[in-house]
C-alpha cells in the first residue's frame, strides 16, 4: 500500500479539483474515482459570492486535503501561502508549487528546493512539484520532501508523460514516493506512469474538462489500478529482436515445410 508521511492510501490516484463545471460534478467525479487525496488551491474570497465554499461541496467523505501553493512565484510567496493553507486546513500537508512564468507554469528548481527545506523545518509535509530532474529529486528528498512530484508535461497540456526516461531514473533512485503530476491527459498516460513504477499519479484537467467527468474519473481509476498491477506483476523486457510466441519445436515439416 502507498504510504506517505505515515499515512496509508489504498488509491494511487490523486485528484485535482480545478476547472470542474460545478461543485456537484466535482464531488461526484471525486467519489467515482475512489481517490483519497485531493488537491485544493487558496485564493482571495470572492466577496460577491460568500457561500461558495469548496470544502462544504466535498461533503462528509474523508479525504486527505493537499493544498497547493499555486500562484507563488518564489519561495517567499510559497511559504506565505503554505502558512495560510495550514491555518485554513488545520493540517500540514502541502503541495509546493513555485511557478514564476505563467506562460509555461514550469517549476523553479532553486526556489522549490529553498522553500522545501524551510517548510520541512517548520513541520510541513511537503510534496514538491518539480521538473523531471533526477538530481533535483535527490536533493529534495535529502532536505525532507515526503514525496516528489515530477511533471509528465506542462500543467494542463494533456500531452502525457513526455519525460519518461527521466522519470524512470527518478523512480529508480528515490527512497520517497514518486507521484507523476501534470500533463497526464488520458487514462493510458496514467497507466504508463504506473507501469513504470510511479507510486501514484495526480490528475486534474483530463478529468475536469472531459465530456463526462464522472465517467472519466472512473476510467482513470481503472487505468491506475491496471498500471500498478502490471508493474507489480513484472513487465517483460523490451527487445529489438523478435521472439516467437508460438513454440519453435515440433513444427510440421512435410507439405507444410514452410512453417519451419
Amino acid at each position, binding site marked *: 500500500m502507498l504510504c506517505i508521511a505515515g499515512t496509508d492510501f489504498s488509491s494511487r490516484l490523486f485528484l*485535482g*479539483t*480545478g*476547472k*470542474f463545471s460545478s461543485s456537484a460534478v*466535482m464531488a461526484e467525479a471525486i467519489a467515482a474515482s475512489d481517490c483519497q487525496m485531493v*488537491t*485544493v*488551491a*487558496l*485564493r*482571495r*474570497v470572492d*466577496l460577491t459570492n*460568500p*457561500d461558495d*465554499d*469548496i*470544502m*462544504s461541496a466535498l461533503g462528509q467523505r474523508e479525504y486527505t*486535503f493537499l*493544498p*497547493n501553493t*499555486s500562484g507563488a512565484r518564489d519561495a517567499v510567496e510559497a511559504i*506565505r501561502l503554505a*502558512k*495560510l493553507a495550514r*491555518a*485554513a*486546513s488545520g493540517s500540514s500537508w502541502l503541495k509546493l508549487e513555485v511557478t514564476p512564468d505563467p506562460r509555461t507554469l514550469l517549476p523553479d528548481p532553486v526556489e522549490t528546493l529553498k522553500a522545501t527545506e524551510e517548510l520541512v523545518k517548520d513541520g510541513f509535509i511537503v510534496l514538491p512539484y518539480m521538473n523531471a530532474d533526477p538530481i533535483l529529486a535527490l536533493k529534495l528528498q535529502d532536505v525532507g520532501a515526503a514525496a516528489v512530484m515530477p511533471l509528465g508535461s506542462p*500543467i*494542463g497540456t494533456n500531452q502525457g508523460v513526455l519525460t519518461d526516461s527521466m522519470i524512470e531514473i527518478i523512480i529508480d533512485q528515490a527512497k520517497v514516493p514518486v507521484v507523476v503530476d*501534470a500533463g497526464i491527459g488520458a487514462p493510458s498516460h496514467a497507466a504508463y506512469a504506473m507501469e513504470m513504477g510511479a507510486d501514484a499519479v*495526480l490528475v*486534474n*484537467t483530463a478529468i*475536469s474538462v472531459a465530456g463526462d467527468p464522472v465517467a472519466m474519473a472512473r476510467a482513470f481509476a481503472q487505468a491506475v489500478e491496471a498500471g500498478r498491477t502490471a508493474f507489480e506483476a513484472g513487465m517483460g523486457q523490451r527487445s529489438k529482436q523478435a521472439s516467437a510466441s508460438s513454440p519453435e519445436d515440433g513444427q510440421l515439416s512435410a507439405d507444410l515445410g514452410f512453417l519451419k
Partner: protein
Amino acid sequence: MNIRLNGSEKTLKEFSSISALLQDLSLNPKTVVVELNTEIIQPGSYDEQTLTENDSVEIIRFVGGG
C-alpha cells in the same frame, strides 16, 4: 475609516472587529483565513482584534485547484 480588503478599498465603522467585518461580508468564519498586515489572525482572536485606518486585510479560502 478605510482599509484595504483583498486589494480594494473598503470603508468600515471605527474600531470594527474582524468578527464584525466577516459578518458584514456574510462570510462563515470557519471557511476562511484572515491575514491582517500579512500576519495570520487566529480565529479565537476575531472578536477582540480591531481594525485601524489603512490596515490591509486579506480574506482567503480554498477553491478548486490542481
